[in-house]
């Protein structure tokens, strides 16, 4: 018996890919190319460097090259390919033993049969234009649409028939889980059972279709389908690598949900994510959409080379774009020409060049509420300022005597600064731009040691002081004034040396003061004085002073003469930390060195004599005095706070580089960051469709090229991924690889039917979902069909609906929904459900996990905080992605750790206890209560059998807790009968949550 089984196994395994019996006619696409690709292309394929002989088997010309020929139709003897694979002499036999790619007996047989039959050749199916195959539907055929006809025809070929429709409860639950990711409420369930089916349980097409529409219109629809997209986008709420700090990525996540809920067509969805910033008049939302490619990881470890990790982020962008839109494994060509698909090493970098000319800033998300609040605050500040004089008098001071004293002090302190504009600027890498008002703005890439060189023609002579203003700007990380965008304090800078020469002669400074200085690291010193100390390791930084203007003033040993000034500023520490925006000014007056200044307006008013001041001007100065008066410190503090603009939420976006500062892209030898070779320009993959001449060669043109309806890949890749979502397996099983190494489609006509119809329906994913969900194929029962076992063991042909284990998030959301705890609150910063201690602390810095309180603990799982180096335990256990790379298909494991999670995880226990308490409070019989629990958890009533099994358990649990009420109290925190009842129901619920049915879609 055992032997027989083994033999049968081997026989069945030998027949790949396992569905239907093989027709006699050999198909090049289905039977031959996979063999050549797997066993031969590595050395006889697209990669010139790897090709060891003239023989090339990946092209038609190569295969039938008369001079060799590898293949001579109908003639085995003349076909070198056949002769070599059949050879017994190890020197001649192919593939060579060293390749470790021996052909199987079946493969040898197939190759020979193919040559015997005439060696028909076909181009690779996925690179051929999408067709719109004719639907052949006979009267009385099973099915609701063209989709079903294609399924039926394959079933017929294999002598199989489809299953009957699933029972109503199963089907409604399936529909809810698939479309909105949570099961129906009891009311929704009852309603659907009544309206969608007739008395016999047959589906009524129109109400069914209306239910599908209703579900697609639910906000939860966007939450369910956004999660799948976020797998591809490698979304996470932290930066990854060692420090793995939090990032502002969730506005992008919300954009995805909103876009899906607003039924944004997929072509627009594509263009906005790849190039939303380049659309004419780009909206804030279109810019937020570009967060797609900001999901790359950011290494913030001390001492890394930021440009090296930016390069890795670029390789990730190429790979992710390839997988997401083209179903191509472009990553292979990073180091060398692709061994299988026609992508050369150079083309890889030309592809990268489309996306490489970008900066990666954060943007303020416009928010009228914040604007209004700011206006209100300012108005309140004006009122409070008006009251200052009163407070001053109350403090026993007289404005009339103190103010004039102060004013005269200020006038004698004030220096007459004049601004300098550089006429020449250069750096090692960042781009400097002279903006209005003598301001210099730095952008682009930055290194761990940047040097800014600025030259000035200075006419004034006898200069007594230099002032450097470090200025904030919304374009800079955290508003600047620094460019630091990783590892250190974001928006800080570290100016290590300030070196000035005049006509080549160095200027010596004796003193430097700052308005503010702070170091993030320890108690070590930082000051303006350290930027004139000749030590490149020490300098001036403004930790915690981001978004504000800071000053440094320097006093030269001797007054500085006019002439050709050359200023050299050094920046950097173990991370890049240059100044992003600054201005230089000089003063010739002989005043004590000071950084003291009034606000901009008030400072300039100091020059106007009292008798020439207008009332308004005088008021400004008097208010400035009052705001600075030590007696009014508290009031002034409140006013200054009101005057500050409340921060906008920021989003990580992509932004095309300015024309003056394009980023070059190079081919990198062996894919190594440190081996750049020749420069390349953006070029599309030539073996695909045409790049329209009208399109610009930038990200926008690239996005439009990708989504062009003549692209043979994108529509197929997209419909296939959605098919995979509904049926657990793609029509092309390798959802991420449509290249030569991918699996050929089980239903090529159906794939093209769906792809062409998707484009016809304006790339509407909602159309696609409805088309699938209303098909008879989808509506089938999921009971295993015995007849299928031998003919189609993998159920590739879908003679019944494939059960699949649910995604981690759907499991959690369903359980929350069953327990009546699921919050409907949408959007916003990520939240933290309960999870066991000791999970988050495994990451660098051992961060604690503080669970959210209130309804935030029970939000949809898409809002759960995602930390790359310490993923949320339950999601991790159920194969959730870590957000470290593009995931087109999740694993679906079935493990003991999952069992332990469902039983004992604090999050599920909390849910079970609350649900148990609610059930205990039901004023109904145990049987009625259990029926309710069943409907909530399984979307169906219990069978008689189940009812008695579970009630037995309930009663024995209750007896147990009755005899051990203290145990019930420990479990539920409740006393007496309440505790016993709650505990008894909670353990019932806990067991029900642990069944296979809860984690599976039937």
């Amino acid at each position: 018996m055992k032997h027989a089984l083994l033999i049968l196994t081997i026989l069945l395994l030998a027949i790949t890919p396992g569905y239907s019996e093989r027709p006699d006619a050999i198909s090049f696409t289905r039977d031959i190319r996979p063999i050549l690709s797997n066993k031969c292309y590595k050395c006889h394929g697209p990669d010139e460097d790897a090709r060891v002989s003239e023989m090339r088997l990946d092209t038609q010309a190569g295969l039938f090259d008369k001079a060799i020929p590898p293949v001579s139709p109908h003639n085995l003897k003349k076909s070198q390919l056949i002769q070599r694979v059949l050879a017994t002499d190890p020197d001649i036999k192919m593939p060579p033993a060293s390749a470790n790619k021996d052909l199987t007996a079946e493969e040898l047989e197939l190759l020979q049969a193919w040559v015997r039959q005439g060696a028909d050749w076909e181009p690779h199916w996925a690179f051929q234009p999408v067709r719109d195959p004719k639907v052949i539907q006979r009267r009385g055929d099973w099915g609701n649409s063209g989709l079903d006809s294609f399924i039926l025809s394959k079933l017929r070929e294999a002598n199989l028939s489809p299953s009957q429709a699933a029972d109503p409860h199963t089907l409604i639950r399936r529909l809810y889980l698939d479309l909105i990711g949570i099961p129906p409420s009891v009311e929704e369930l009852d309603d659907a059972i009544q309206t969608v089916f007739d008395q016999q349980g047959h589906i009524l097409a129109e109400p069914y279709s209306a239910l599908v529409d209703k579900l697609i219109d639910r906000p939860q629809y966007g939450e369910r389908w956004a999660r799948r997209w976020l797998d591809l986008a490698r979304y996470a709420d932290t930066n990854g690598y060692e420090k793995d700090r939090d990032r502002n990525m969730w506005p992008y996540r919300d954009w995805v949900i909103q876009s899906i809920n607003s039924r944004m067509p997929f072509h627009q969805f594509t263009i906005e994510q790849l190039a939303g910033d380049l659309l004419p008049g780009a909206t804030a939302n279109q810019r937020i959409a570009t967060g797609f490619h900001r999901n790359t990881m950011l290494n913030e470890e001390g001492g890394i080379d930021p440009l090296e990790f930016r390069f890795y982020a670029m390789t990730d962008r190429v790979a992710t774009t390839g997988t997401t839109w083209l179903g191509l494994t472009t990553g292979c060509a990073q180091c060398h020409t692709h061994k299988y698909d026609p992508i050369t090493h150079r083309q890889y970098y030309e592809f990268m060049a489309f996306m490489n000319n970008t900066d990666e800033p954060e943007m303020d998300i416009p928010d009228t509420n914040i604007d209004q609040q700011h206006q209100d605050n300012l108005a309140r500040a004006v009122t409070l300022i008006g009251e200052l004089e009163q407070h001053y008098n109350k403090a026993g001071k007289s404005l009339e005597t103190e103010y004039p004293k102060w004013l005269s002090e200020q006038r004698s302190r004030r220096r007459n600064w004049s601004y300098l504009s550089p006429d020449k600027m250069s750096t090692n890498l960042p781009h400097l731009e002279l903006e209005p008002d003598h301001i210099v703005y730095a952008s682009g890439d930055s290194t761990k040691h940047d040097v800014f060189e600025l030259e000035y023609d200075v006419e004034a002579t006898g200069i007594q002081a230099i002032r450097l203003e470090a200025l904030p700007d919304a374009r800079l990380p955290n508003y600047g004034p620094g460019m630091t965008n990783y590892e250190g304090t974001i928006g800080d800078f570290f100016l290590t040396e300030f070196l000035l020469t005049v006509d080549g002669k160095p200027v010596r400074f004796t003193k430097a003061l700052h308005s503010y200085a702070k170091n993030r690291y320890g108690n070590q010193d930082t000051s303006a004085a350290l930027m004139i100390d000749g030590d490149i390791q020490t300098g001036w930084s403004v930790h915690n002073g981001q978004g504000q203007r800071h000053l440094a003033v320097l006093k030269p040993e001797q007054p500085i003469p006019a002439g050709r000034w050359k200023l050299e500023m050094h920046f950097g520490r173990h991370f890049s930390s240059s100044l992003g925006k600054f201005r230089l000014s000089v003063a010739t007056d002989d005043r004590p060195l000071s950084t003291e200044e009034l606000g901009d307006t008030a400072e300039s008013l100091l020059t106007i004599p009292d008798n020439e001041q207008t009332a308004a001007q005088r008021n400004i100065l008097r208010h400035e005095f009052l705001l600075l008066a030590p007696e009014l410190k508290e009031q002034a503090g409140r006013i200054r706070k009101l005057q500050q603009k409340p921060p906008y939420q920021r989003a990580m976006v992509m932004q095309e580089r300015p024309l003056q500062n394009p980023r070059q892209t190079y081919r990198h030898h062996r894919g190594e960051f440190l081996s750049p070779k020749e420069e390349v320009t953006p070029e599309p993959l030539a073996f695909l469709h045409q790049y329209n001449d009208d399109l610009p060669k930038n990200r926008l043109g690239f996005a439009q090229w990708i989504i062009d309806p003549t692209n043979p890949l994108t529509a197929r890749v997209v419909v296939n991924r959605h098919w995979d979502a509904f049926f657990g397996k793609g029509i092309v099983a390798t959802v991420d690889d449509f290249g030569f190494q991918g699996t050929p489609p089980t239903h090529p006509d159906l794939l093209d039917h769906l792809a062409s119809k998707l484009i016809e329906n304006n790339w509407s994913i909602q159309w696609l979902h409805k088309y699938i969900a209303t098909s008879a194929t989808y509506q089938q029962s999921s009971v295993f069909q015995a007849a299928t076992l031998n003919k189609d063991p993998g159920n590739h042909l879908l003679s019944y609906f494939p059960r699949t284990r649910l995604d981690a998030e759907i499991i959690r959301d369903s359980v929350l929904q069953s327990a009546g705890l699921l919050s409907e609150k949408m959007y916003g910063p990520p939240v933290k459900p309960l999870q066991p201690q000791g999970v988050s602390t495994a990451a660098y810095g051992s961060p604690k996990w503080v669970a959210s309180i209130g309804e935030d603990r029970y939000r949809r799982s898409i809002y759960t905080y995602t930390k790359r180096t310490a993923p949320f335990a339950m999601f991790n256990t159920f194969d959730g992605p870590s957000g470290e790379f593009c995931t087109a298909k999740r694993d679906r494991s079935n493990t003991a750790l999952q069992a332990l999670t469902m039983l004992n995880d604090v999050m599920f226990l909390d849910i079970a206890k609350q649900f148990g308490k609610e059930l205990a409070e039901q004023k109904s019989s145990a049987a009625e209560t259990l029926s309710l629990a069943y409907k909530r958890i399984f979307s169906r009533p219990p069978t008689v059998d189940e009812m008695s099994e579970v009630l037995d358990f309930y009663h024995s649990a209750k007896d147990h807790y009755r005899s051990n009420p203290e145990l019930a109290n420990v479990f539920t925190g409740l006393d007496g009968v309440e505790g016993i009842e709650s505990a008894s129901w909670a353990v019932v619920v806990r067991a029900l949550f642990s069944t296979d049915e809860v984690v599976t879609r039937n």
Partner: protein
Amino acid sequence: MNPISPQLGLTRRTFLQDCGVGTGKMALASLLAASTSAKASAPETHLPGHVKPHHVPSVKAVIHLFMAGAPSQLELFTEKPLLRELEGQPLPDSVLGDQRYAFIQANAGVLGPQFNFGKHGESGQEISEVLPHLHTIADDICMFRAVHSDQFNHAPGQLFFNTGFGQPGRPSIGSWTMYALGAETQELPAYVVMNTGGGLSGGAGLYSSGFLPTVNTGVMFRNQGPPILNVSTPDGLSEAIQQGTFDLIKRLNQKQFTQLKDPEIQTRIASFEMAARLQVSAPELMDLSQESQETLDLYGCKPEQASFARACLLARRMVQRGVRYINIFHSGWDAHSNVKGTCSSKATQTDQASVGLVQDLKRLGMLNDTLVVWGGEFGRTPMVEQNPTLGRSNGRDHHPQAYTIWMAGGSMKPGFAMGQTDDFGFHPTEDAVHVHDIQATILHQMGLDHERLTYHHAGRDFRLTDVHGKVISKALS
């Protein structure tokens, strides 16, 4: 009707094979075994292997003591008197090349060794005074004194050592091993990770299954509470309730199976059976009262206290129970400042237990079957790190060119050392060994050929060692 027909077992097998879903999922073998009523004799595994060993394995298990943060080879293993002589002077440009550094300037002065060294054992292995316990097993260990890495930052360096790639997303050595060989124990996870220092730079990526099936992920044992997440029955649930719960779940799942006939439901049932077994075997594993005081003293282990020593002792107990791959991470070696103090304190925390582990394995006759690996992600510079802004002095920066790792057990040559560096300890001069070579050698010890152990993903066959790596045959007996 027998709920599991032969066809169903077969179907599941076929299904797993050709759709790639569920490969390596639990209970396939037991399912087949059960279906043929040969349960009693057939060996069960919950995690089947996918590769027959390429050659006879030398060891059954690997214990990798990963010293995260990069220990200083110049304080621990390699005496360089010239550094003492040249203290404060920069290295010649000819030595430096164009190496990039994390924190220091390349022209920083050199720092002399902070400890005295001696030759130990009959083999005369050079080891510093700060590792007194290691002296005693000098003749049992095999030292690589010229190991080099591609990475010079911690997270990339740790990921590179453990997964063969400097960015997260690839399978760890342990995951490759699990994927290839499967599990021998059903009572415990077969790939266990412990972390006894601070948080890890490389994060969960260090023991991730990457693109391999997720069941091959290392299971992190916690230092507080029950070691395996959720393994203990919550408070307020008695044994009776727990048992009743398991029984009820099984009956309900069985009914579902009777109705739908999906073999995956049988796998779920098997998962719960294993979960129940874990609830027993995990506490048994952790119960160190079975160990003699003499054994505890050998490791320097206090049973109630989570420590590197306890993790080492647990690792030995795990190997005895069939666990195949054990990672113990101990971080804190990152001596950018005060390299002397860092080495002293870290040596105090790890020396006795690392050595105790080797001695214990040896006396129990297990060292022949167990490979112990000790080392970090890279080494430390001959040059000093001083940085007033960061408050650092007398430290060393990261140095990927040459550092030291030791291994013991299996077919590693005992009392053997290979690899030499120049007088500055900067570059290898003889028998350099790359991290990929170490990886190839670990796999080799497990009976796996690193060039043949491949997995098809994203359009190509991936290997732990990419296209590099050579088994260090010179160090194998």
